[in-house]
């Protein structure tokens, strides 16, 4: 029986641990911090394999709204027809196109879901070609044309209203150092659509982590790994912060690959070319987070302040040149207990963003009526790195761009979950499909270990 240590406590680590335990491994999970509730969808295959239930995926309702220049709000609902009604107030033409747009995008998202349910495809295999063909001629054309596109062009092809395009376009740029005119952001737009119903373009909140924590079979240790021990070219265990050494035949790390391979493994074991390549994996955090408690309902469940694609692009321009956006893109969601979480983009990692919190609250204050915050917590990317363990504040660990996706995630040499050191394996947000798809990379990694 293999002794296996899984490093990290996110959904990917826990899924890997469970699958390995069921595959006969003796598994210990070492987590230094409890993962906060993760956003994201989990492939049905994973849920079935671990008999996880009842899984609840939640979206606010309406799933997003945005203030209109003339007053009132544009509201997008799960019910496509209801969204059409709302869009009609700003553009009858756009309203008319909405259902078809939703259908076409959903079809592509379903395709991505099937791709994400497996280890990264070999793009040149006939099998992958056949799967893609099932999209049909127009679907495949859409896919090949849209994947490398800027989300701005995609939306310009379909719609005319700035507010609508702004709030949709924002999905393409969340957590990436790019603007809506950057190629490949249309792919990100689809990525964030994965797992959501037709007509919903934001990822859900999920209770998968809680369900995973309740499962037996796996020992959880709350401490930190200092080193991954290597002897004679193979991984032999881990050294903990408290000095304890634990032997293992297999170590699975859900920590970001650069940290795992360059910092936790002693220098000299890896091909210097790989070390160099790891240095260039882009993982720039671009968003700050504000959590706050309001004394009453703000009058919305989800609100995006990204009034046009140009607004997003200008916000990006600032960050591109190293500054905090003068007019950042904001997206706030609020639950029934009036707990609000705000995404503030763009905030470059190197910036302290001192006055940002006040500014953001000032802007939001115009939209939440009589509500008053009783408690606020502002975390810049640097602080998110410290408190959440996200490298440079990037929750996806490796930016999800086309050159760091699928069989290239995070690097072609590592995409199959196997590190180039016998016994060491990788999962987590930086591994395919990662980036907000909860648990799937752990599942694929465990299957690779089990040789399935």
């Amino acid at each position, binding site marked *: 029986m293999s002794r296996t240590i899984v490093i990290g406590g996110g959904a990917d680590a826990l899924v890997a641990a469970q699958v390995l335990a069921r595959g006969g491994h003796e598994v210990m999970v070492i987590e230094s911090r409890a993962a906060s509730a993760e956003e994201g969808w989990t492939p049905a295959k994973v849920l079935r394999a671990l008999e996880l239930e009842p899984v609840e995926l939640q979206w606010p309702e309406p799933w997003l709204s945005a203030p209109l220049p003339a007053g009132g709000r544009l509201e997008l609902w799960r019910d496509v027809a209801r969204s059409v009604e709302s869009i009609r107030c700003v553009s009858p033409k756009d309203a008319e196109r909405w259902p078809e747009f939703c259908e076409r995008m959903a079809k592509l998202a379903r395709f991505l879901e099937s791709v994400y349910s497996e280890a990264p495809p070999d793009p040149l295999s006939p099998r992958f070609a056949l799967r893609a063909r099932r999209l049909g001629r127009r679907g495949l054309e859409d896919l090949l044309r849209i994947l490398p596109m800027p989300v701005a062009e995609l939306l310009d092809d379909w719609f005319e209203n700035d507010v609508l395009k702004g709030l949709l376009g924002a999905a393409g740029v969340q957590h990436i150092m790019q603007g809506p005119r950057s*190629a*490949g952001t249309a792919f990100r737009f689809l990525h964030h659509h994965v797992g959501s119903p037709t007509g919903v373009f934001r990822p859900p909140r999920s209770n998968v982590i809680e369900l995973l924590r309740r499962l037996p079979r796996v020992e959880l240790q709350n401490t930190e790994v200092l080193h991954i021990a290597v002897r004679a070219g193979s991984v032999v265990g881990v050294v903990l912060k408290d000095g304890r050494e634990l032997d293992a035949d297999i170590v699975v790390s859900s920590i970001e690959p650069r940290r795992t391979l360059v910092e936790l493994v002693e220098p000299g074991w890896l091909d210097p070319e790989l070390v160099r390549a790891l240095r260039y994996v*882009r993982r720039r955090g671009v968003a700050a987070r504000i959590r706050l408690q309001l004394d009453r309902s703000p009058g919305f469940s989800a609100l995006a302040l990204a009034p046009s694609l140009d607004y997003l692009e200008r916000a990006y321009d600032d960050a591109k*040149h190293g500054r905090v956006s003068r007019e950042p893109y904001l997206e706030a969601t609020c639950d029934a207990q009036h707990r609000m979480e705000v995404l503030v983009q763009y905030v470059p990692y190197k910036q302290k963003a001192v006055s940002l919190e006040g500014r953001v609250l000032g802007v939001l204050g115009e939209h939440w009526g009589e509500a008053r915050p009783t408690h606020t917590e502002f975390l810049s990317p640097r602080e998110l790195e410290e408190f959440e363990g996200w490298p440079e504040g990037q929750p996806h660990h490796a930016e999800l761009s086309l050159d760091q996706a699928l069989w*290239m995630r995070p690097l*072609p040499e590592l995409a199959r979950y196997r590190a180039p050191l016998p016994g060491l394996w990788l999962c987590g947000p930086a591994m395919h499909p990662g980036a907000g798809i909860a648990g799937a990379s752990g599942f694929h990694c465990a299957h690779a270990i089990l040789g399935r």
Partner: protein
Amino acid sequence: MASYDAVVIGAGHNSLVCAAYLARAGRKVLVVERRERIGGAAVTEEVFPGFRFSVFSYVVSLLRPEIIRELELPRHGLHILPLESTFTPLPDGNYLAQWNDHDQNRRELARHSLRDAEAYDEFGLMLHQMARAVKPLLAMAPPDPTSLSFGDLMGMKRLGEHFRGLGVKRFSMLTKLLTMSSADFLDEWFESEPLKATKSASGIIGTLLGPRSPGTAYVLLHHYMGELDGVFRAWGFAKGGNGSVTAAIAGAAQAAGAEIRTAAPVAQVLVKHGRARGVLLDDGEEIGAKLVVSGADPRRTFLGLVGEQHLPGPFVDSIRRFRFRGSSAKVNLALGELPDFAALPGRGPHLRGAVSISPSVDYLERAYDEAKYGEYSKRPYMDIVIPSLLDPQMAPPGKHVMSIFVQYAPYQLNGGWTDARREAFGDTVVDTLAQYAPNLKNAILHRQVVTPADIERIVGLSEGNIFQGELSLQQMFFLRPVPAWAKYRTPVSALWQCGAGTHPGGGVMGASGRNAAMQILGRS
């Protein structure tokens, strides 16, 4: 009504290449050109007495070697003079030069970064391998992955085998080149700003994208294409200007029996029962032909000359979506003396190469930022050559012509291009360059400014896009110009396209014209 086997619309280089191949195959070919001169955007004009300019395109780097060989272009007058270097003056008085000589180049790079000097050879090797990987695609009619036809399936299979043969490492590198921004890609190799900027500049030419925009890395490859075919220093200047390139191709076409008529603008493509029958000229003359080949760009061809009524709706939608967004301008100067660069004074070998105003990636990106919102760059990127140093016949003795390629000058300028805006833009360009070469202003005898609006008006390229449509990933290969219609055919039978708006795209390459001819002739 006169009748031909094929009538080719436009006398740009692709049209002429296509006509030449068709004529050599024994077809009776007529080329009809709207202007009084042939050449399209590859023309040499004596704009000011004694001063001859390649008014639009100005260097030869991508012209396919097989075309030069097969059409025997040197016999028809083509002589490419090599450009020796790229010189990037910097605002702080320093400069970066890239020389053809390996050791001289390494020494110069080491002045800026020892790491870069070391990485340079490896970078060159990698691009060499990538260029090898891409080369077979250039001469290929791109197979349509969405089609189930035997030909397309076989094409995809061949393509798959080709890529598989590259191995994972090289295939991944190719994918990176296709999807990354040139700035990000170069960050993985180099640290010196002027080097990264000057290299990444080749990725932004002709597009409305900045060096940090994904998709711009691919064009880095093009500079390495020529070397592959043993045409060392393929990057050069055509003796007599770029008009001599098209003149040579026209010579080859005529020698093979093709007729060329200038001042013969086409009003429409004659279509009957879904089939092209010839063309109607502006003056009412009808020219019948078994097939019509259009070298005009897709928008002009389909929405202008053919007309929506003859085309399927989705096809028309796709053509409408095809993006042009011209962003490049030219400033042509007649000079009384050579520019004297503060960073490297005197008449050195650096003046015989390209001069690149690209001090940093940030500089280029800021130039793009302005264009993105409809303004021309206040501090633009420039690629400058002084052809009269290589070919003294371009200017009166002792005098010089300077060709300045400028970006960004967006076609969609806020408020539109006017004569006043054009001249103000010209001033910006001269002012910027004069910061590096202080004697420039006094040296200028005449100035010609060509904006994207001028390019559209004079040459007929939609929105002044020099590539007949942006070379972005979603407009490349089997998507160029429209999925399912990338193999030079069109929904109108007997109507073909051969311009740079088809695969593999622009850059005075001639490949589109040749590929189209091969398809028409049933060879592949």
